[in-house]
């Protein structure tokens, strides 16, 4: 016969101080755990949404990121005529790009941060369908004009619409703000690729990377085969989304490793708290337990009852932790991505999956913290416990 649930509810109420302590311990742990995971998730989502399955990114073979790349103009011509490249009225949808970094002061701290500056072709909005102009207009090719991602005006000083900035030996006018749907481009500054090369004194016929719109996601194979077998070309072809996933791996791993480390340590602490609470519950209630055994509840029923009580405390803790962390969802923060060496804004992403993981983590802590005391409760000899009266 099972011990009635009401018994556990009432005894939790009777020892509410210890129960609250255990609940808060678990809530804190779950909160920190979810917060770290959602940070990693948010960063990864930002990087991943930058890439599209319909696009291919072409770099010089061996270049680890776009900044390292060098693709000469002759090879760009070959790419424009390659199979699998989408066309718009005969014009190939290809954006040869020049990627550099410029230092702009952060509004928050006043210190310089590395901002990715991307010289793009006039076709870029057709190649990258996820980018749309939000305010102002697209830059005029050949002029020193900038368009900036929607996170840029609020993050860096002097890059608001119609501001004029000086960098890389030129004066630039901000003529537009674009919305890249929460991707890494929202933290970038774009301009005409030729103008950027001139200002940065780079050879005009060398590009960092080439982004190509494919006729269909499946056309990647065809394009890759054609370019990698061409003796004139030394390039690597990646699906854009794969490239960005790779670029996000370093920081994502770092946040995950550190977050899990911190959460596991906190989890052990919370388990100790739960054990302490449950052990004192057992020792304070040894008479009650012995009485229940004496009137016929089996050892199994007692174990189940105490584990249930521990799980209840853990569940409440897990729920409080998850609810407390919900306001973080969408909160924007920023960090430096080593792999692209540039500063990037991204938002916490508290997903239902992460909340679920948090609750499971809480129940696990409750289980580990509840089983040993429950077994001890059931094992105490009835006669001995009652004699202590």
């Amino acid at each position: 016969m099972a011990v009635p649930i009401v018994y556990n509810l009432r005894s939790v109420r009777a020892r509410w101080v210890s129960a609250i302590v255990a609940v808060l311990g678990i809530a804190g742990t779950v909160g920190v755990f979810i917060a770290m995971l959602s940070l990693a998730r948010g960063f990864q989502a930002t990087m991943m949404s930058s890439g599209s399955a319909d696009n291919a990114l072409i770099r010089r073979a061996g270049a680890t990121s776009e900044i390292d790349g060098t693709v000469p103009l002759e090879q760009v011509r070959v790419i424009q005529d390659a199979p699998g490249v989408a066309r718009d009225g005969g014009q190939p949808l290809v954006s040869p790009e020049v990627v550099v970094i410029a230092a702009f002061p952060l509004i928050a701290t006043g210190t310089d941060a590395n901002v990715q500056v991307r010289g793009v072709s006039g076709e870029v909005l057709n190649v990258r369908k996820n980018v749309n102009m939000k305010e102002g207009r697209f830059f005029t090719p050949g002029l020193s004009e900038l368009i900036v991602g929607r996170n840029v005006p609020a993050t860096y000083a002097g890059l608001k619409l119609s501001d004029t900035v000086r960098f890389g030996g030129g004066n630039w006018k901000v003529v537009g703000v674009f919305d890249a749907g929460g991707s890494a481009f929202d933290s970038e500054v774009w301009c005409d690729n030729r103008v950027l090369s001139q200002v940065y004194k780079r050879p005009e016929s060398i590009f960092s990377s080439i982004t190509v719109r494919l006729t269909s996601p499946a056309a990647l194979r065809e394009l890759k085969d054609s370019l990698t077998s061409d003796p004139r070309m030394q390039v690597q072809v990646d699906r854009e989304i794969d490239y960005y996933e790779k670029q996000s791996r370093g920081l994502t791993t770092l946040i995950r490793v550190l977050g899990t480390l911190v959460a596991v340590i906190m989890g052990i602490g919370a388990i100790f708290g739960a054990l302490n609470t449950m052990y004192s519950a057992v020792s304070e209630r040894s008479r009650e337990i012995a009485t229940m055994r004496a009137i016929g509840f089996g050892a199994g029923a007692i174990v189940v009852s105490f584990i249930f009580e521990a799980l209840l405390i853990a569940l409440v803790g897990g729920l409080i932790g998850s609810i407390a962390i919900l306001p973080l969802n969408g909160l924007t923060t920023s960090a430096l991505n080593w792999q692209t060496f540039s500063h990037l804004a991204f938002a916490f992403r508290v997903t239902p999956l992460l909340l679920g993981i948090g609750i499971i983590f809480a129940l696990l802590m409750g289980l580990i913290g509840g089983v040993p005391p429950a077994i001890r409760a059931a094992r105490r000899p009835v006669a001995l416990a009652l004699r202590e009266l």
Partner: protein
Amino acid sequence: MKFAPLIIANLFRKKLRTTLTIGSFAVAMFLFGILVVIRGAFSQGVDVAGVDRLDVINKVSIIQPLPYSYRDQILRIPGVKAITYDNWFGGVYQDEKNFFPQFAIDPENQRVVFPEFVISDAEWKAFLEDREGAIAGAGIAKRFGWKVGDRIPIKGAIYPGNWEFNIRGIYRGSRDNDDLTQFWFQYKYLDERRQYGKGLVGWYTVKLNSPDDAVRVAKTIDTMFANSPYESKTETEKALASDFAKQFGNIEFLIVSIGGVVFFTLLLVTGNTMAITVRERMGELAVLKAVGFTDRFVLLFVLGESLLIAAIGGVLGLALCKVFTLGGDPTHGFLPFFYLPGPGILLGIGLALTVGILAGILPATSAMRMRVVDALRGV
């Protein structure tokens, strides 16, 4: 002090509870240690930066180069003791995961400007004589099992091609927190082989006669190259490192919030345990008072137990953390400075004792205030 055995004997009465409480303390202090380590890992560059060094970088950004000809011009400025230059190589050893920084260095002045990196004269001489020679930090040498004489292939990412280097020496740090993950080779080797960017260097590091000259010399350098095609930005090494650290975002805030959550929880757990302990022992504490011990004695007696638990737990946790950090960076290469500094340990012990006092103070005062008659009546 003669009551210390009594306090210790009390700890052994409920062994399980004592163990668990000490355990929670140890875990919290372990976590505290890890947070100090992480914070340090992100700002260590700032702590080890030399005060008498300036970094001269391209005003546009650190990845833009500066001409080699600036070297002699800067050297002529009064107050400049020495100058050296570096160029970022950014190659890949075996796999992209095996990241470590490679620099093409100026062998002539490297050791004058960066005296904290220690290397024997014989190894340095062998490095100078080999055009393809390289010096590796003790940290990466250990990580990849490199020995002097090994030939190391590195695939160029910025400078295409397969580059091979001979390890001619291993450098060590003179302080605990020096970066031992760098890989140095001769600038001449890079400049001869690369196809573009010849005659340009990544950045200069200037050693000053005195840190007091920093502002003046920095201003002189930047004025000298203003309005040229390669404008410069000169900062102290510390300022550059802290700008860089700030780009990592709110790491510090994150760590303080986690630390806060943990301490609040810890305080609750220990306070609760101490309260239970005192409640159970009201009878005997009353006996102590009845046979003539003062209120103050009872207060200190209870506080003493709480403090002892805190001290044992704190020392245990921090010791474990120290052992853990000796195992090295758990992310394999992203955090070159992974170590627990002495002041951090002291701060941790101080915090543990503070929590011990805070957790013990309420039960201790209630024990002090109780009336002997009430407590004994209940027996």
